[in-house]
């Protein structure tokens, strides 16, 4: 029963969405299924949060390596929920002045706004910006022309790196004849993106799509049940 009910739900929902795409009469069924999906997506967020806390608490209780980080995660998680749901510092929406919680949760000066501006923005931006440093050391230590394929990749990367800056134009200014302008790095970059990249990506995309169709069919027909997990 534990596996049968979810299996039936998946098969029915899958076929409803499929039919809704081809039969105009069934369009409404598809919309209903999507509404259910959206409600479930909200539930999934709660489930995800619960799972996160469960794993972090287990890490803390067993004092696994790095349990201090888990403690920080748990504290931040509950602090953000408390401040966000409490809407501290948020004024009521002017349309609903009698409802204390009707204001915008990120109103300037509110608790959540403070967390967003002074924690989320600098932390996430810093994490992303750090990539520049790691890519630089990777370029220095790992990007080697060991064989023909690696050399091709390296040359292409060099052209694209320069073609994505003004250097791609500036290096050829004043001396390259007009009939050879296609050799300018910015033009070569466009060609690389338009032709070899598009051809390769298109092939990969079509391959993935065929794989998705095959997997979807297996799920719809109940052949593939791996998504139900093990019991």
């Amino acid at each position, binding site marked *: 029963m534990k596996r049968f009910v979810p299996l039936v739900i998946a098969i029915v929902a899958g076929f409803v969405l499929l039919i809704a*795409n081809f039969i105009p009469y069934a*369009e409404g069924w*598809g*919309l209903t299924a*999507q*509404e259910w*999906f*959206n409600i479930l*997506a*909200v539930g999934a*967020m709660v489930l995800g949060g619960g799972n996160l806390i469960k794993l972090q608490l287990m890490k803390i209780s067993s004092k696994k390596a790095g349990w201090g980080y888990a403690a920080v995660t748990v504290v931040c998680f509950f602090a953000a929920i408390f401040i966000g749901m409490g809407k501290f510092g948020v004024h009521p*929406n002017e*349309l*609903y002045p009698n409802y204390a919680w*009707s204001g*915008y949760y*990120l109103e300037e000066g509110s608790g959540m706004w403070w967390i*967003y501006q002074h924690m*989320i*923005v600098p932390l*996430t*931006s810093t*994490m*992303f*910006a750090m990539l*520049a*440093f790691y*890519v*630089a*050391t990777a*370029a*220095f*230590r*790992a*990007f*080697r*022309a*060991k064989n023909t394929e690696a050399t091709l990749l*390296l040359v292409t*990367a*060099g052209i694209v*790196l*320069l073609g*994505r*800056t*003004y*250097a791609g*134009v*500036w290096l050829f200014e004043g001396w390259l004849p007009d009939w050879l302008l296609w050799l300018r790095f*910015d033009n070569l970059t*466009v060609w690389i*993106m*338009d032709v070899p*990249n*598009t051809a390769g*990506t*298109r092939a990969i*995309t079509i391959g993935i799509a065929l794989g998705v169709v095959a997997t979807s069919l297996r799920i719809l027909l109940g052949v593939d049940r791996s998504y139900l997990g093990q019991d």
Partner: protein
Amino acid sequence: MYNTLKNLDRRWVFLSMFLAVSIPILAKTVFPEVVSKQAKLVFDAIEDLPDGSNILLSYDFDPASQGELLPMAQAFTRHCSAKGHKQYYMALWPLGSPMVDLSVETIESEYPDMVYGEDFVKFDYKAGGEAVIRMITQDLRGMFPLDSKGVSLDKIPMTKNIKNIQDMDLIVNVSAGDPGTKQWVQFAATPFGITTVSGCTGVQAPQMYPYIPEQLAGVLGAIKAAAEYEAAIDAVYPDINDNPKAQEAKRRMGPQLVAHSLMIGLIILGNWIFYVGRKRGEA
């Protein structure tokens, strides 16, 4: 020399990258931009629409990608505002909503004649990703009965006659991943033929090129394309050209040029070490 470089502490590389990025920022180095075909396609997609067209702008990115994507998002806002288009903002990412707020602030400060509800409107974040897109292609109110201020869509002048996003003349998606441009192409642009343009991160851009020109009218890939798009706007709109805040992407091309040149230098240096080491039988 060889031994010094071979055992070079990676902190020197970090320092050189730090200087490569920070010096052009402090020196405010700006280079001229040549508008590429892709930037022109995106510019034309917005420019060629009649004034006052309906444009849905979905900001599917968060502060992590703000440095790369916000300048192009703001450029879209300024271009649409200069053309007098009606702008419908939404976000498929939870932290995309505050990004939309930045564009709303730009409209309110730089285009004071534009009125909320008549010229631009914002919908709050809704969970569901592609399911949100599927839903609003059929029934906008089913997903967004209210705008972000809690007003019914039936009471807002610019939404009261909108049934779903098939009423949009153009979708502009600024995307840093999933859900993002791919989902807009799959669930809105392709099945309903809604013209769509995308601004995405450099990592995503190669995956979007196969969708041009049928499913996507154009793609802006990363900050370079944003700078070209700004240049295309500047050429037509002198007011935007004179606005220093509207030159953010161009300003970031200085650090990009020096950082990319440094990367090339590091790759060449690394390979020189590799070949010398191989000659000496060390590799």
